[in-house]
């Protein structure tokens, strides 16, 4: 069965510090998505719930069951998807597979995480538990990997430290146009460069915050989409790849193999190349990651992504805007929600619903990175 896969609706909750726990966050986004798509709960065949660690964060398991029950989706097939920070992207992949294969004619994807009730230390430890024991025992954190990688990048390519601050400034500026973003404030380059050191040479404003939130998308075959929507998006390419569990075993710390491999797969499936991408959401959990993904996806030559940022080419009015949503940096990073929220931003851009952030785009890309590049999903979407 060769079906084209469409996305006909989406939603996201406000990202930030929320009182709601994981079940409520997920059902808020799921319910809003059903309404946005105009789909009745009875019509949903599959529901996927992207989440990294509800058990570790709040002792709640079985959340795919909770969502299916709370939204009246029974007896739909339900599954929780964990691929660490790329759980949302992995959910996109699972939802796409379910429609593409003919197993489902209507699939709801909801991603969410509840994190802020834990202190930064505990939350950092939950996230660091994804590392290999040989790494964990040294007290490594994902921010530490980012610090080591950023230093290597700056030294190897003679890139100015200020270029990383410019990524944060740009994404914060975009965030002021996104009412759902955690932060609604612009920052200056000076403020970013003078913020406290977290993992030298990276400072507080090089890192995304800890966030609660949820996002959702509705998938169906194109033939079914025609019944529900005049404007919708199709998933024209998607790829997923895995890199080493142990980060230091990679040949080159500044190349994310999972980004390269998943990107190539997605480009090939879509039959297009990097020059065809009008707008992109990249996984800027750390500012340096925006450079590594731009290079891994061939938006920029190796060692030159920083120049694109310096020249304003990735700004919302640049030739290829990156992270119009504010990115993880400003919008926030509720682990399991982020990949879905990236897809939601691209969907909104393609159907012309991005409000103050709207850019002229027919084709968009989302790159969702798990761990420190350990698992990556790249998705290409086109407007219909």
């Amino acid at each position: 069965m060769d079906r084209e896969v469409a996305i006909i609706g989406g939603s996201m909750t406000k990202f930030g510090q929320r009182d709601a726990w994981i079940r409520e966050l997920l059902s808020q986004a799921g319910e809003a998505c059903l309404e946005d798509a105009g789909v009745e709960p009875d019509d949903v065949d599959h529901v996927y719930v992207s989440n990294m660690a509800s058990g570790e964060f709040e002792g709640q398991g079985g959340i795919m069951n909770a969502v299916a029950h709370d939204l009246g989706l029974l007896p739909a097939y339900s599954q929780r998807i964990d691929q660490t920070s790329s759980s949302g992207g992995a959910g996109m992949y699972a939802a796409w597979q379910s429609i593409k294969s003919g197993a489902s004619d209507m699939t709801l994807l909801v991603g969410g995480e509840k994190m802020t009730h834990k202190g930064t230390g505990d939350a950092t430890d939950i996230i660091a538990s994804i590392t290999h024991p040989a790494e964990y025992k040294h007290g490594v954190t994902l921010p530490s990997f980012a610090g080591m990688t950023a230093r290597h990048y700056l030294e190897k390519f003679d890139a100015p430290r200020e270029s990383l601050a410019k990524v944060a400034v740009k994404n914060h500026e975009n965030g002021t146009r996104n009412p759902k973003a955690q932060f609604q404030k612009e920052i200056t380059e000076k403020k970013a460069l003078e913020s406290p050191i977290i993992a030298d040479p990276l400072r507080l404003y090089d890192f995304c915050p800890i966030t609660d939130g949820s996002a959702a998308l509705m998938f169906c075959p194109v033939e079914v989409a025609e019944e529900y929507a005049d404007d919708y998006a199709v998933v024209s390419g998607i790829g997923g790849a895995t890199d080493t569990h142990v980060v230091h075993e990679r040949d080159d710390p500044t190349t994310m193999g999972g980004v390269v491999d998943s990107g190539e797969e997605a480009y090939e499936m879509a039959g297009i190349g990097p020059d065809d991408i009008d707008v992109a959401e990249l996984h800027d959990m750390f500012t340096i990651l925006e450079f590594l993904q731009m290079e891994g996806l061939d938006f920029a030559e190796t060692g030159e992504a920083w120049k694109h940022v310096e020249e304003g080419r990735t700004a919302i009015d640049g030739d290829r805007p990156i992270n119009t949503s504010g990115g993880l940096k400003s919008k926030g990073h509720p682990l399991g929600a982020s990949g879905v929220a990236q897809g939601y931003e691209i969907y909104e851009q393609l159907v012309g619903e991005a409000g103050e952030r709207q850019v002229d785009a027919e084709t968009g890309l989302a790159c969702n990175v798990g761990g420190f590049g350990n698992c990556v999903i790249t998705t290409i979407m086109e407007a219909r």
Partner: protein
Amino acid sequence: MSMDAIRCPNGHVKYPTHPRCPECGEEPVETIDLSDRTGEVVTWTESTATPPGVREPNVLAFVEFEVDGTPVRALGQIADNADVETGDEVEPVYADELREPGVGLKPADADQEWDGYRFRLSQ
């Protein structure tokens, strides 16, 4: 205690050990102890926001060793949080507790060693 890397029939050297060579999938044929060798700092960071049970600050580095001409890297803490620079020569030094067992998410008796090797500047 040793700092074991593996070598596969195709000459790939990997640290830490794996049941199969991550690069080619072959079964390892040899174990190589890196603890009595010197390596070079590839990059480093000083982490000031550390998880429960971890020293603060925590200076960490990627260090590259060479085994018969084949590079192999390891992540480790820098002993005494000493000042390091990229390119410095360092050597492993044993520590019986790299972080406090059982304080973070993992129980003390988890699939987790708590001792191992830090790196100190070569004398």
